[in-house]
């Protein structure tokens, strides 16, 4: 078997409750491949965000291991995982408010060490345009864009760094149903047309229906939902 894009081995995670370790994840094992659209379902408080933050190196792995293209997280600097391996999309967009849509995308292009094309500005414009943001909107401060538009900017930002993995934690939580559909289409296209590994946490079974693989997090364990 070829090396998976992300391999999760015996990943456990706990939060300290006084002297007591409350485990949120127990011995999770799973792997994620490029070109596939994954969704993770689970009740509120089941540990979805915790899991995503570990994949995105936003939190430190306590027990077990995550491999990125075969490299153990232990051998990688969390910062470099964030800038070179994963791109994150958040529920509340998390864009830099005093920058334009274009500039937000270009910040990420500057930070990554992955190869990005020379004419960054054009690439960024095209990327935004591809997500339905023409130049006039690309040059707007992000605070003057709608929620759906902002979320598309943040997807463009995650993608602009040429990472293989797009992690999205409830990306449609703040948008209406139509926009949700559009965004899901984008994720599908990213996986299928641009061969990204797309992992989306959601409450929505509608989104899950669109996914190639659906994972369920329950009582700390990850199970495949056939």
């Amino acid at each position, binding site marked *: 078997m070829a090396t998976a894009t992300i391999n999760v081995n015996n990943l456990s995670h706990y939060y300290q409750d006084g002297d007591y370790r409350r485990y949120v994840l127990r011995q999770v094992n799973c792997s994620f491949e490029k070109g596939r659209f994954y969704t993770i379902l689970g009740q509120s408080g089941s540990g979805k965000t915790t899991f995503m933050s570990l994949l995105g190196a*936003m939190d430190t792995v306590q027990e077990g291991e995550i491999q990125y293209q075969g490299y153990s997280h232990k051998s990688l600097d969390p910062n470099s995982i964030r800038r070179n391996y994963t791109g994150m999309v*958040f529920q509340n967009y998390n864009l830099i408010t005093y920058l334009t849509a274009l500039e937000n995308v270009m*910040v990420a292009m500057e930070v990554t060490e992955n190869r990005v094309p020379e004419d960054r500005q054009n690439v960024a414009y095209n990327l935004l345009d591809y997500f339905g943001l023409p130049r006039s909107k690309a040059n707007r401060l992000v605070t003057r864009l709608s929620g759906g538009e902002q979320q598309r900017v943040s997807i463009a930002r995650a993608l602009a760094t040429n990472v293989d993995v797009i992690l999205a934690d409830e990306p449609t939580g703040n948008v209406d149903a139509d926009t949700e559909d559009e965004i899901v289409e984008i994720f599908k296209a990213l996986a299928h047309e641009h061969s990204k590994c797309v992992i989306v946490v959601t409450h929505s079974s509608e989104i899950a229906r669109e996914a190639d693989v659906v994972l369920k997090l329950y009582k700390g364990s990850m199970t495949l939902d056939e």
Partner: protein
Amino acid sequence: MNVLQRALASMTRKKAKSLILLIIVFVLGNIMLSSLVIMQSVDSTREAMLRELPPIVSMQMDNEYIQEKMEEVDDPQEMDIRLPDFDELEEIEEAGRDYIRAYDYSAHGSITTKSLDYYQPEDESTERGMVEDSGEGQYFTLRGAQIPQFTLLEVEEARVSQGRTFEPQEIEEGKPVILMSEELAEENDIMAGDHVLVENKWHEIDRPGGPDDEPELIDAREYEFEVIGLLDFLDVPGEEDHAHGMSDREKYQTLYTTNGFIAELQSDSMEIMRDELPEEQREMMEQQEDIVESPQLPVNFVLNTSEDINDFVDSVEPVIEQEYIKLSTQQDNFQQIAEPLESMRSIIVYSFYIAVGSSILVLTLVLLGFLKDRQKELGIYLALGEKKKKIIAQVVVEALGIGLIGATLALFTGMFVSDSISEMLLATQDMDLEEVSRSSSIMDPTAPRFDLEGVMEQYSVSLSFISIVSYYAVIAATTVLAQLISSTYILRLDPKKIMM
């Protein structure tokens, strides 16, 4: 969007924050700049004044220090007050060789003669006149010189108006050549080039029949002087403020000759007096002979330029072994006479440090507030995998950029501010200074040669290139330091908490 572009965007687009920071830096900049301007104005006034003064450092007894010690010590006899001898003088000369052009000291002597008349200033009442001719002859002071351009000439207290000054050879051989004031020469119908026959008389010191008794004449010898030149005494700035004492009149009555000749005269008198003295006193006299082995203080070092004064003092001070000897310079006088300026300067120095210190504090707090306000943005950079040092670099560039703009704006207003601060501070200073007493010795080249009024006239607010550079450096250092301190906040940020 690299760090610089981000910084620029942040500075220009978050206008309210930039403006707040700008105003703070502008105010602080005004305080710092005016401090620097005042410091520099005092310094450059001092420099300008000192530059015009003769480049002389004078080695003298430190009388104030001796006085202090006397009170501390039980037995003043134990204090080892010794004059530096010629060997030590040589050492000092060696240590300061790079700066010394020449050095001069002046042996003291006197003659009592009937061959010369006193000069009596016209405006002075005869009551205050010196000594009535008591039949013993007039008493004249002799002052020696060690170099042709001796101190009196060097400090421009007098100039040779007729004839010439000493030849180096005359000094070396201790020739009986003299210079005297024009006034004294006129009184005695003497011209430069004249030879004067002077009879020096020695009288018995003890007057057996009390003070009214005519002292007995012991011996008299004739000396032939050549009057080589006449001296015109010049007005010294600052002099009119200070008491015209004996010293001032004495300068007209003094005969200026070579140190060598004074030494010769002294050994003559020693010889004569010794025979007259009782046994015990003779011993004392022999001890006193040692004094001749030391140059008469003050020894005045004439330096190449007045800019060398501090360097000279620094390099020579370690060589001076006697703790009761000090080097005095015009600098000391400036400190004393221009006290209002100097104390203004020290007030400003303190307030400068306080200003810098509180600026760092204020800026740190303000910038920390700004960072907390930007928590989200900082979290985004971290989530994107930006290195923390780059994030810190961005905020430092922002603070520095606005800091320098604020500093530049303050540059325009700071001059006016410092002008009015100077005026305010000087107005509150007590200008009626205690009169700084002029040294009683006319040959003291370190007597103040300026007065407060003159100093104040010279004082003007000025700003040199160096001060502008250091002003910018201080502002830059302050903002950068404040931003770095507050940036410890960035180090503690946890992107997960902020973002997820």
